[in-house]
Structure formats: structure tokens, C-alpha cells
């Protein structure tokens, strides 16, 4: 948790807070994971790396974004 505390999710970058940018990144990771899954299910190549990247990215996004605002 101490690593997470190094950056402030409530800091604004451009039009949005980092927490909002994180939600966008999570969506991108979800899309990558599902795209990897479609390639796997259709027996196309390159499905596993994309699925792994998307799933790991999604998990990291969720674990970081779930951190509540500190006092």
C-alpha cells in the first residue's frame, strides 16, 4: 500500500482526476482481454499474450482504483 500512496488518485491531469483516467485505462485493458479471448476462441494466433496482458492490466487497475481517498 505504501507504493500506492506515492501518487494521489485525486490529482487532476488535464480534464479529469487520475482516478477517472484509471477507469479509462481499465476499459482499455478489458477490451484487450476480451479481444485476446476472441482470438483464442477462433483459433487465431496471438490470443494468449493479449488475454494475459488484459487480465493482468485489469487486475492492477482494480486493485489501485479501489483505494479510498485518504484523509
Amino acid at each position: 500500500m505504501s507504493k500506492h500512496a506515492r501518487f494521489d488518485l485525486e490529482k487532476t491531469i488535464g480534464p479529469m482526476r487520475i482516478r477517472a483516467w484509471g477507469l479509462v485505462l481499465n476499459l482499455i485493458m478489458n477490451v484487450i482481454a476480451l479481444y485476446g479471448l476472441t482470438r483464442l476462441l477462433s483459433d487465431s494466433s496471438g490470443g494468449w499474450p493479449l488475454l494475459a496482458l488484459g487480465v493482468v492490466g485489469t487486475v492492477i487497475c482494480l486493485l489501485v482504483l479501489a483505494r479510498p481517498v485518504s484523509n
Partner: protein
Amino acid sequence: MSRPEDSGQSPVYPLAEAIPSEVLDAEARRLEEVSHKPLPMRVPTYLKLGGPGFMGAALTLGAGTLTAAMLSGAQFGYKTLWISWVAIGSGLFMMAAMARFTTRGRFRVIEKQSERHGWLIARFLTAFVGLVSVAVIFNFGQVALGTHLMESLAGAAGVSFPQEVNWPLYGILTAWIALSYGRGGRGVRAVETFMKLALLVMIVSFGACLLVVGIDWPAALRGLLVPWLPRGAEGVDLFIASSAAAIGVGDWVFFHYAGLAKGWGPRHEGLARVDLLMGLALPFLMVYFVVVSVFAATLHGAGAAPTTAVELSSALIPLLGETVAEFAFLIGFLAVPITTTVALGIVCAVGMHETFGWDPDVRSWRWKACVLMPQIALLGAFLPSPLTLIIVIAAFLALSNNIVGWSFFLLLNDVEVMGANRSKSYLWNLGILLQVTLLNCVAAMWIFNRLGLWG
């Protein structure tokens, strides 16, 4: 109308203004009194004072959810029962956020969304797409099912009462109940009581059918506890669609505004959470379980199953054998579209007023006209449903539910909006994010489907 300083319950929503302050204060005192008792002793009070959760269950348990449950039972037997508690469980985190906005935030969430995240997300995606469009378009399915069931019920009693003739009765009944919601605090309570009774009718009626057809308990318990999905894309589709579809924008926002209409304040948060469990989750799980089980015990493995609610119910009725069971099924099933149509009328009125930023004066013709808007679906009794519109709205919903979910998650974690009442729980945030991720996947799959990449 004097309100004691310590009540903290002055209404923030005009629908609650008709509730006398003494009533709200008495409720708060009663909640305070029972709060020290063990949970089983508190439940009767919570059941009596709750209501928005039951309204939410009535909204969620519509023709669409019941069709999905019947199809699931007919196609896969008991095997997919576990999805129901995953679906409702993942949705409860967001519903708890709505309870927080109602009781401690004490603001109209769409207005606050508009201030913080802009009118496009608040007024258009949440209010217009998530509430108004859903209420009007999805009522076609309720009317088609409801009038068909009235025809079947009359037919079972030996009377001819076809859809082409019975639709005015359906319209008058549902419109009258929905309009009652605007008749002050007593009206709110009367509609909530109607919803509670209707849910009870569903559970008892479908339960009676289950007693007649029997249940394979080992298979049902395995289906509840052991996750199973069909292989390949069908399984992924089924899981994501079923788990994300149970509770959506309409349910989130409706629960919030129904709580505001009851004048809920800070001391009602515990009640609101129990209402979510006892009023929304439990009836949903019970009805879903019983319906899946009835169809698993009868139509599963009996060849190609029909795909619409009307065909499925028609296929089931001869298998029930007993006339009493046939009546029970039809009456319980009729409660489904009626309660949903009533809820959709109120959803539409709330949505229209939030879309245009109007103050909801329940005595006004504008409020009444908005409640009656979904009744245009009465055309569905004798015309085909507007398929193109349904597809367009479903697409908008698939692509926007997640954005609305982001917005609510951000509001709950916004210090400037929630102050000390913001989420301070890692697990709560994680639960909401899991549901938002499911909704992201629904949006992505919709696009993949259109691009021919899926299935």
C-alpha cells in the same frame, strides 16, 4: 410544517414533502430503538419501514429477467442457478452507493452528476437513456406478456377475453397504481405495499408449481454452488450478459429516488441497506430460483425449447397437469409484468423530470403525463413490438451503462461532493469496480459482435 432540528430529515425531494415531519421523526426514533436489538428482532421493523428495495425487485423482475430464467432452466437445467447470486451480489455494492447518496448525500444524484460530470452523462445517458427510454421501450414486452396472460387466465376459467379487448383493463390498472405513487406519503406507502404483496404472490404461486412438478434438490444445490458454463463463446456471453443485466442504471437510480421520496435521511442508511438485502436481493433470488427450477424440472431435455416468454409459458402449462397449478402459474406470472409496468411509469416520470431539470410536482399534469408515457406500449397488445427501437435503445444501454457506473463510482469517492461520507472502504470500491468491469465487457462485446469478432 415544523421539523425538529435533530431529525436531519427535511425532504430534499418534493415527493417526500407530503410526508409529515412527525412520521419521519417517529420512523427515525423507531429505527434508533431497534438498532440495539439482535438482527432477527430488527427484521420485522425493517420489513415494515422498507420499500424502495421491493420496488426495485418489482422493476428488475420483469418479462426480460423472467424470460432469461425460463430459458436458462429449459436449456441448461439447474446448472446456471449460481449466476443469479453472482449477479445480484455484484450489483449490491453499487446499490449501497445509491443508498449512501440518498441517506447521507441527501441530493438528487442526477443533478449532482450534472454539476460534476456534465449534462451528457447526467441528463442524457443516465436520465434519458437509462430511465426514460428504458421505461417506454421495455414496457412493450410487459404489455405483450401481461395481456397474453390475462387472455390465458380468462381462457383457463372458460371465458374469452382476448388481448385485443383486454388491453384497456391492463392499462387502467397499471396507470391507476402508478399514479397513486404521487398521492403523498400514503400513496408512496400504498404502492410499496402493493409491490410487496405482488412479490409474495409470485413466490407463493411459482412455489406451488414447483411443489407440483417436484425438484431435484441435489442438482439444484449443485447448480447454486458449483459454477458451470457452456463451453466457448456461448458461456462467456451467458456469464457476462446475465451477471451484468440483473441490476443496471434504472435499478440504481430508481432505488435512490424512491428513497428520497420516502424522506430517508442519515439515520435510515442501515434500513436502506437491509431493504436492499430483504427487499431486492432476497425476492429476486427466490423468484429466479423457483422459475429456473420449474422449467428445469419440466422443459429441460424435452427437445428444442421455445425462446419467448409467451411460448415458454404456453409450453409449460400442459406439463403442470393440475388445474390449480395452472392458475397459480398464470396468476404469479401476471404479477410480473403488472408490477414492472407500474415501476416503469414511475421511472419514466423521475427520468423525464431529471432530463429537463423540472421539479417533480406530483399534483401537476406534467408529472401525470410522464407517468403515463410508457402506456404507449399498450399498442404492443395488438401490434408487433418496435424491434428497431428496442435494438437502438439496447445498444445505447450496452454502450452507456458502464459510463454511468464510472460516474457514480467517482461521485462516491469525490471529497468535494461526499465529504466525510465518501467511501472509506477498499472492498466496497472493489465491488463497484467489479460490476463496472462487467459493464465494460458488455459494451466491448456489443462492439465485437457488430464487427463479427465474437460468437
